[in-house]
């Protein structure tokens, strides 16, 4: 079970969180024209990297904040966590 550092609450067990997928995907702006290709890329196309991956988790059994987690998909090592408003480099 992973040990995830919520930027608001501190280190908490994985069972308090739910997974939210790739954090680098950006939704096309509302009320703006978007090409079919861009839309499909946003809705369906995801990379499945082996290694570092920046992803979203929500602290559902805690502060309910969505957070960013940089995790190695092969080893589960977590390098960094951040608020969604912060950048992970």
């Amino acid at each position, binding site marked *: *079970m*992973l*040990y995830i550092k919520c930027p608001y609450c501190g280190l908490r*067990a994985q069972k308090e969180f*739910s997974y*939210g997928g790739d954090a680098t995907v950006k*939704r*096309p702006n*509302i*009320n703006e024209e*978007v090409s079919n290709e861009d*839309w499909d890329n*946003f*809705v*369906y196309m995801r990379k499945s990297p082996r290694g570092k991956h920046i992803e*979203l988790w*929500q602290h*559902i059994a805690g502060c*309910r*904040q*969505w957070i960013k987690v940089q995790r190695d998909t092969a*080893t*589960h090592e*977590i390098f960094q966590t951040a608020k*969604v*408003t912060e950048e992970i480099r």
Partner: protein
Amino acid sequence: MSQPFRLNKEGLINRNKKISFTFNGKKLFGYEGDTIASALIANGIHLVGRSFKYHRPRGFFGAGVEEPNAKLQVEFNGHSEPNVNATEMELVEGLSATSQNCWPSVNFDVGAINNFLKMFFPAGFYYKTFMWPKSFWYKIYEPFIRKAAGLGVASIEKDKERYEHKFEYCDLLVTGSGPSGLASAYAAAKNGAKVILAEDKPRFGGTLLTDDVSIDNLSGKDWAEKIITELKSMPNVTVKNRSQVFGYYDHNMLVMFERVSDHLEKKSKFTPRQRLWYIRAKETILSTGSIERPIVFGNNDTPGIFLSAAAKEYMKVYGVLVGKKPLIFTNNDSAYETALEFKKNNVEPIILDTREEHSSELIDEAKSKGIDIRFSHGVIVANGYKKVKSAKIGKLNKDKNSFEKIETVDCDCICVSGFWTPSVHLASQSGNKLKYEEKIDAFIPDKKKQHETSVGAANGSFTLEESLKNGFENGSNLSAKITDTKTEITIPNVNEKKYGAHDKLWCMPLPKNENPKRFVDFQNDVSVSDIEIALREGYRSIEHVKRYTTLGMATDQGRTSNLNGLQLVSNIENKIVPEVGHTTFRPPFTPITIGTIVGREVGMEYMPTRKTPMHEWHKKNNAVFVDAGAWKRPRYYKQGNETLFEASKREAKNVRENVGICDVTTLGKIDIKGPDAAEFLNRVYTNAWMKLPVGKARYGLMLREDGIVMDDGTTTRISENHYHMTTTTAQAANVLSHLEYYLQIVWPELNVNVVSTTEQWAGAAIAGPKSRDMLSKLYPDLDVSNDTLPFMGYKEADFFGVPSRIFRISFSGELAYEINVKSDHGMFMWEKMMDVGKEFGNQPYGTEALSTLRIEMGHVAGPELDGRTIPSDVSLNGLVSKKKDFIGKNSLGREAFNVESRQKIVGLIPIDRKSSIPEGSHIVQDQNGKLPNPKLGHVSSSCWSVENNNPFSLAIMKDGKNMIGKKFFAVSPLKNKSIEVEVISSHYVDPEGKRVRS
């Protein structure tokens, strides 16, 4: 009542307390502190089971967790448990143990014929033998294998015991209380670290209890006791015996299995039987020690053959002799200690040492005590069927591939030692890639992936001095990093015997024309020839060989067989062991009970139960409940001998004719506040929300980004910047997360806050033609006319002294209202409604009637919004705005969503107007059509229409409304029914929706 193999005084058992038990029906006794194994051996009993495949007689081989054979069916404290390790289970008064895998008895087992049919049971025999003819599989092969295979019998009784889970955090977890573990824990504790020390056996000390050593002029056992006593007195240390750390998971979380009360004769009601610990450790010390490995020889599975360290442990810990005429068969010095221990107890052993004559501290001592040592000797084959009677031994030539001399010697036990294998299971589970250490012919941990450090024998250091030093240093350094404190500790003086080099021989050659079975894996009956066959048949990867032959599988996970298996494969393949590699170690290290995994989450505690504030009223009024997620909802209120069908019909009919009330507390409720709330709703829902006036509700539909309907519900504008959203019961949590996602990540610029208020409000729906009359009695001071409180209207009003919210919304399709009061007032509201409603013929109705009402109205719910439908599939395209953007809008243009023949919602009625259509039925053109019979759609919801008094169903069907008027068959292979149906509109009752507006 004498015990022929019990020594007079050796051992750590309590001779003042006798414990009686039975084995295969025979009454026996042992002492407090015995295991089942030690007590049986004391009574001279060795034959305890039959082997898995060949049903060969099997006895004890080890003295602890390494035991591959002695798995018993054990009954105690009123429950029966299979596969109990006899070498670990402590004796308790009244325990009853029986042999497994034998019929009719362990002494005479019919299955032993397999031993003579062994040509039919070679490696991979499951795959080969039982293939043809195919029709034999279910009736003949499968039942046969089921009966012949497997070990014990699982109980079908309810487990009455209590199990617990516990979460713990520590700086340092030490797994094993041998010398290196004790040293690590002690050093870390002195540095002020929070330490957990876990020991799987009842007694602390590991090899210190059996080795002839001294530390600081104390015996190993006394030193261990001194350290443990001090550790126990320290507030920062938790010391746990009977506790096996069996799994190493991500981010340094380890799982430990504690046998809390299996060894107790009496315990209090709330004492758990076993406890599962989830331990998050900053650092872990793996002081798991090592397990002796056997040398392979003919009939090496005969009862009476032991690991030499086990034989020593039986003498030193339990005061039990495994035999009185022992052969010690070894390739190293450690078995000499066993021989010396026998000698000390006046038993004359013969040592067969595969090495050439040489000298070491232990060999010299054995010689000086007059022990018969035969160098360059080994056991070729053990004789005796149910117990070793003699052994054919041979003098090896220089190359150790043939014999110079062969003779037979009498013996009643053989104690074998093929050197030591570090227990690297936990290290491997943590992700540590192991490396092969030539010096000890075994794998040891290499680069770490997590915060773990192996010390002592688990790391391949087999001297006490090294282990202690290793333990003290690592314990001190690792904890100092955490606590920032370093207490100097003097490493104690050690007195131990020096071992000479071991011999690499691991398998005895066979003389010409002799071919006895030589087992590598006892638990799975895998012999040398089985592995040879697997390789001959082309299996190369060690993982494949494992699966084909079952080498190293099952409960003992190859603890004694693993390395010999690898040696054999590498010999045949002409490779070295590190090239062959090793199979993956996986948790659990040792079998644990299902009860422990489950813990307290059984029965009512399986998951949290959510009850509405009116729950007790429902219960008192014969409600039959149904689970809706974690909620308990009344399904129907039973009157007399009514069935579900009769009751739901009565309740639904009463709503259509009079008035009914329904507990709708479980609906998800989300409070939405902020100046941008309207804009937010406008983006979340498919329909327009900017112009909803204060005091009005609106039905809304929300999609996922891929265009699929996510949820529906009404949202009411309470005040300028304040909305009250409702969701379906099932989607409440998902919708909240969905809203939070968009507010926190996608549109953080919107000034809106959302919070769940599901549990803050109690809700009741009043539905039926007489609901307005009833409402006016509930609110005598309020104008509830259609003009002031129209459909989708909202009012706040005083309900007999408590504040309430009135929503004129309807799920049933009737004139209806939903009243919300604070949860605390829920029961008060409900009872008032029941009281006031009497004169209007009010009856409560449950979810079954609720479904009937919505289905015949053609209102969609979960079965239609099943994660595959878009708005137009369920006739809700009127709610999809063309003018504005919203979540999922761009997806609705996808080609597949706009195909005319797409499956859409329709209504179905049976031609005979009588036969109910099972939900899930497939719709086909021709009920006798050739397979594959094209499926045109499926039945999503079914009810008995109370309005028309015949069955009615909703279906999602190809070509949708274009099919209206046509006839098909609804086929349910599950219910074995085929019903001829006609397609009609999904709005079966009041298609214009007049009633809700009346």
